[in-house]
């Protein structure tokens, strides 16, 4: 198991370096001059040259990448070109908002999705199964921004049950949870349907396997067979999907953070790309990549724990 985890961690490090280098190149290749954006229209040529030098933009691109990685290893992601605040501080300040949003969204959608999937599989072809199927496919097809807008109009404007903007007072957990309801609904809703369909299909496949038939033949209770044996195996693809899904959730968080005016990584990335604030773009991208790589790695490790065939490399 240890060698499997070490192999997986090594691969994750390589993926991170490659992804960050690629994104560094893409960001520096797109048109747009950060110096003009930062200094505004009134800046003199001397001022522009000085800032270019300070940002290291006058150096060759390979040197810039090299410097970025060297500084990154020291934990120094540079300074925000507008406010001069350390990028590490800015990015880490936004990470909790996005992480909490994603985790809460995935948590409630996984709990509901798995429950619905199990119910559908156990009650195959029943009215409830069909109803769940229709609802699941319907919510999968609805994009997060549509859910965001309609939930805002219904629950924030019309009913005024939940707040429309912000993330809540920093020290007030209740207020923060209150502010999380609509954004996490927007992000998580389509995942409920997706997970429900996935779990149902996996469960039906597993329920037809030999060891389940054997368990039934031995007269084990149906509840134990379903939740103790079948679900444990059927959940494997769901865990993988949830791990990979973190990337998609990060993208969905961008829309949601803008629509709900929530702070977070997505909003930070968009703002910094439009202003060509390179240090903040790179810092945000690095952290987003790390979150994505960490979640897929974690999903792989959980899979390996649940399924001995994986850690044996079979």
């Amino acid at each position, binding site marked *: 198991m240890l060698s499997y985890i070490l192999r997986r961690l090594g691969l994750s490090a390589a993926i991170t370096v490659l992804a960050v280098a690629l994104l560094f190149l893409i960001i520096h290749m797109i048109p*747009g001059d950060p110096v*003009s954006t930062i200094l505004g229209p009134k800046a003199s040529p001397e001022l522009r040259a000085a800032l270019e030098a300070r940002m290291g933009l006058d150096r060759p691109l390979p040197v810039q990448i090299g410097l970025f990685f060297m500084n990154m290893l020291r934990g120094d992601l540079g300074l925000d070109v507008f406010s001069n*605040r350390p990028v590490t501080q800015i990015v880490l300040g936004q990470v909790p908002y996005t992480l909490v949003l994603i985790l809460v969204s995935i948590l409630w959608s996984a709990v509901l999705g798995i429950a619905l999937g199990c119910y559908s599989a156990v009650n195959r072809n029943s009215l409830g199964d069909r109803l769940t199927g229709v609802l699941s496919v319907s919510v999968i097809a609805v994009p997060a921004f549509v859910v965001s807008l309609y939930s805002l109009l219904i629950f924030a404007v019309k009913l005024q049950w939940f707040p429309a*903007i*912000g993330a809540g007072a920093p020290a007030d957990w209740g207020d923060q949870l209150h502010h999380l309801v609509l954004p996490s609904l927007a992000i998580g809703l389509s995942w409920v349907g997706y997970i429900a369909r996935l779990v149902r299909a996996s469960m039906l496949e597993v329920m037809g396997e030999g060891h389940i038939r054997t368990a039934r033949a031995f007269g084990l209770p149906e509840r134990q067979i379903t939740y103790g044996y079948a679900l444990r195996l059927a959940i494997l693809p769901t865990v993988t999907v949830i791990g990979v899904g973190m990337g998609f959730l990060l993208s969905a968080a961008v829309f949601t953070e803008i629509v709900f005016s929530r702070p977070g990584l997505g*909003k930070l990335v968009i703002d910094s790309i439009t202003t060509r604030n390179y240090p903040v773009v790179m810092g945000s991208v690095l952290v987003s990549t790390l979150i994505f790589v960490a979640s897929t790695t974690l999903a792989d490790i959980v899979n390996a724990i649940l399924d001995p065939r994986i850690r044996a490399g079979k």
Partner: protein
Amino acid sequence: MTGRNISWTRVDMPRRAFLKGATMLGMASVAGLSLPRAAFASGGTLKTRTYADIRSMDPAFSQGVVDEEIQAAIYNKLIQYKPGREWGWQPDAAAMIEQVDDTHINFALRDDIGFTNGFGAMTAEDVKFSFERIIDDALESTNKPDWGPLDHVKVTGERTGTIVLKNAFQPLWSITLPYIAGNIVSKAAFDSVGGKIDTQPVATSGPYLHAGWEPKQKTTLKRNPDWKGEPVAYDEIQIFHIDDEKAAEIAFEAGELDFTRVSLDSVERLKSSPIEGATLEEYPSLYYAWVGMNLDNPKLQNHKLRQAIQYAIDVPSIMAGAYFGAAEPSTGIIAPGLPGHREASLTGTSADLEKAQALMAESGETNVSLTIDVLNKSANVTAAQIIQANLAAIGIALEIRLHEGATFWELGSNEDLELVMNRFSMTPDPYYATSWFITEQAGIWNWERFRNEEFDKLHLAAQSESDQAKRAAMYARAQDLMEESGAYKFITHESTPVIYRNSVVPALRPDGLPLYRYFGAA
């Protein structure tokens, strides 16, 4: 729509008389004869919105209205913009301010303004430090041009001094002293942190205190208990950073904002289905949008062709289609209410197809195909589509090229640029508008590469001209020259629709931007 015609209140007044008036007004205010003002309720929280996060609380590095909206509430200036429908200013930290000649402005500070965090009373040394640091090359302030020909500030007493200019500079009263570069900071406070600050003020002096900043979320201001000036209405102001206007509108409808700007395409809906307990008001904006033509491009060398394009563009259609009827056509780069605003443009606002076709025939050009570069905002894209249809009517095929923000603003250096749908921000002085179109700016912000010696001379002379009528005529002539070149078709100054709860008495600049220190509660 109300109050669309704004004017700089002092325009027609001889400068001496105006300054005498200003001096007396300032003294009266200090003597306790407070300015006429509505009786406001006091207390509570004002929740409002700004379209972006702050960048700097250092006046030397602030770049626009987002920072200034907060700075104007937490710092003091010698003079501040006066809220209302007409441009003007009123004394703030100045008990007396008087321009004694073209290059000398005497001032005396009020004796009741102090800095927070124990940095003492505001003195003339603070004024000297605040203004001179911006023109100091070592600081690399992006706002140095706002101070124009400032030479130095002479301190003549603890609270008195003289601003000394190298030459006359009229915009000083309209865009320097009452705007970003006019904020007065504490010399001792800045010295204590090495000479400059970022997003956290070290010491403030205004009626509100900077109580907190949650990045990407909100800035909180609180009533300054030591403020001795005109009392402010709110205990707290929460300024939420909401980029998207639609999100801000939803937040307003959900009761989470008391004041916000709304999008132009929402004006009709908000008029036909008003929000209960709220008021929608439209203010004219100073922004100017136009279609520019690159005079250096070989495809646009024919003057008749450029004129044909000018006459073919139907601005009223653009107002209806792209601005939802919530904006008016413009006649130039200088908005109504500012010196130099023209009542009419040379080429008119409605398309004159007959004339355009005749000019096209005179040009001898056939099978013309051109491109127009556009920022990917819905108003611009729709406007470009209407222009495409307008030009098709005179046989010009127009290809629309969309760009994201940072890419678009790099196009100025592109020599192959043909037509461009452009939009610049503006401050309330015509000097700011013409400064981007001088020869020196060709290929930088003068994307049309318009080079005109007379225009350059007018720009230079008008900034020092003290006779306001003459000054206005100079700027009007400058815009004539722009239009005569065939490189410009002026579109609109847009507008600023705002919505607020009836419990709020907003205090806005004539272009609809908020002056929070003057906001009241009904």
